[in-house]
């Protein structure tokens, strides 16, 4: 088992329960989404976050409700961690009228204005400038809100990653860029895609401070993002974090095992570092939670997700006239 962060300042039973519960909620949500996909209730592309939960949960745990988050297309976890109602997220995946985006976005385009979750963007790299723009607006208005922007290692080869780093540094924008390096852009490993595989080092060229963090350790992520958010608020400056993580499933449901481009041994090895398993063990060791507490959390989470599926099932399809609504905002 990997070494865990030695000290955990400020962690108490309440926080431990919250972090574990959110990670388990995302895991359960994704498992149910996979099942529902197999049943034909979810269509299109479905990209699961299983294995990467510590990143979204650790990062979101230091955000205020008025801070923003934005992500790519593997974003169910980020959206849930920012506080969206799992029932409405599931309904969106089902393409139903009570979905967050009223069934018009689907799995890849979750948006939630009530939690300041800004999407759900499925052109690789394109939301990095958007995040810089939100930071620009926060600074323009004189606020101290931060924005965290999640993206995969695949986005790093895109021009927009580099344009965003340059602009964020040049204009000192309060944005936290979190690269979730899960080792593979679809089937292309980082080694086959990037001349510099230590992604956080790209920040150096632009004067953007950064670091790599163990993306399987929710507390390590929490601390690193905490520092970055603090920099955004106090210095109005950007950060580039590289969270090293791993996706246990394939790229999408159309690549269920992810077996062509990586070995079974590698996947099994990485599963030893399952972020939920690691944190659960830690909670018990530290005495933050008891076995009974963990069981309760597990049951609560399962109930919530069962409810989410039932809610999505019961929600009607969007009415046909919605095909032509929300194209232009009327004066």
């Amino acid at each position, binding site marked *: 088992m990997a070494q865990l962060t030695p000290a955990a300042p400020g962690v108490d039973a309440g926080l431990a329960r919250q972090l574990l519960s959110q990670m388990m909620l995302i895991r359960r949500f994704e498992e149910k989404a996979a099942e529902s996909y197999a049943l034909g209730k979810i269509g299109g592309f479905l990209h699961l976050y299983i294995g990467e939960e510590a990143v979204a949960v650790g990062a979101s745990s230091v955000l205020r409700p008025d801070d923003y988050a934005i992500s790519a297309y593997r974003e169910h976890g980020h959206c849930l961690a920012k506080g969206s109602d799992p029932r409405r997220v599931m309904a969106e995946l089902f393409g139903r009228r009570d979905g967050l985006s009223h069934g018009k976005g689907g799995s890849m385009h979750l948006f939630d204005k009530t939690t300041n979750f800004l999407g759900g963007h499925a052109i690789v790299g394109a939301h990095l400038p958007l995040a810089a723009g939100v930071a*620009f607006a926060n600074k323009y208005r004189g606020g101290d809100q931060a924005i965290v922007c999640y993206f995969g290692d695949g986005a790093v080869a895109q021009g927009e990653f580099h344009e*965003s780093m340059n602009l964020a540094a040049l204009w000192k924008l309060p944005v936290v860029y979190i690269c979730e390096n899960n080792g593979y852009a679809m089937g292309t490993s980082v080694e086959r895609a990037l001349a510099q595989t230590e992604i956080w080092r790209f920040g150096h060229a632009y004067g953007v401070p950064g670091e790599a963090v163990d993306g399987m350790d929710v507390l390590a992520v929490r601390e690193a993002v905490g520092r970055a958010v603090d920099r955004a608020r106090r210095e109005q400056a950007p950060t580039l974090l590289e969270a090293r993580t791993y996706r246990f499933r394939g790229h999408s449901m159309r690549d269920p095992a992810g077996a062509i481009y990586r070995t079974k041994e590698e996947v099994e090895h990485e599963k030893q570092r399952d972020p939920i398993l690691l944190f659960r063990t830690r909670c018990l060791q530290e005495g933050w939670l008891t076995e009974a507490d963990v069981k309760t959390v597990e049951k609560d989470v399962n109930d919530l997700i069962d409810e989410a599926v039932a809610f999505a099932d019961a929600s009607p399809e969007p009415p046909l006239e919605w095909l032509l609504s929300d194209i232009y905002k009327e004066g």
Partner: protein
Amino acid sequence: MTYREALNMALREEMQRDPRVFIFGEEVGLYDGAYKVTQGLLKEFGPKRVVDTPICESGFTGVGIGAAMVGLRPVVEMMTFNFSILALDQIINSAAKMYYMSGGQFNIPIVIRGPGGPAYQLAAQHSQSMESYFYHVPGLKVVRPTTPADAKGLLKSAIRDDNPVVFIEAETLYPIKGEVSDDPDFTIPLGQAIVRREGRDVTVVAYVGMMYRAMEVAAELDTEGLSVEVVDPRTLRPMDTETIIGSVRKTHRAVVVEAGAGFAGMGSEIAAFITEQAFDDLDAPVERVTGANAPMPYARNLERAKTPSNERIAEAIRKVCSANGR
């Protein structure tokens, strides 16, 4: 006042009116604008609101869209619209679709403006009509202002609009002069065509530079006894089909003129909706006069041959008017 000054006035007035409006682009500040449209604005409003960007169209357009998502009202300048191709993904996939794919949660009040259309010997990459790349996209509004008054009134409406507006000025029209209201409340609504010249025999639909050619031709043909009505759509999306159809129902003949390459161009769409909605009123098939289906050449004679000339416009008008015995 010139077309350029009218645009400048619109920007200044809207920035005075609404502190959420700011300007982004290459050379818009210190340099006073590559085409001087933003002249004096840095001095008046400061670097917070008139922001010089490095050369990264996709990046800075995306930054503008992000700022618009959370309530600012950016005006992003493309030094020329030819460079907007680098930002096409942001404009189409982010700006145009955000309101729809978020189920009506996030609208994008952004204006993307700059010069476009054929210019003088700038060759293939700097001299082209870009509107067709945009008006196909649901969620975008597309404006092509022809006169200085339109430039001011339509730009102000575009800035006040809650949707992404692609505002393509005509590079060759910056120095032209015309009457412009200095009333800060003067606006022209998007989606309203205007009848530039009334006539009985044929409707010519044309905008920006082609509108002026159509007007010259109309004056010439008047001496031959042909009465030409000229309609300028001004906004290409949403298109004021009603005004155009109304004119065709009156004249029973139509010619569409556009500078861009004809294949799947603006003329195709206008000819299609005239045919669909007013077929029984037509005495002749709709005629299109378009730019040649070629990239813009550099040589002066070839360049001249690329865009519709007065002669070609006149020829098309005579052709539709001679069909079925006017």
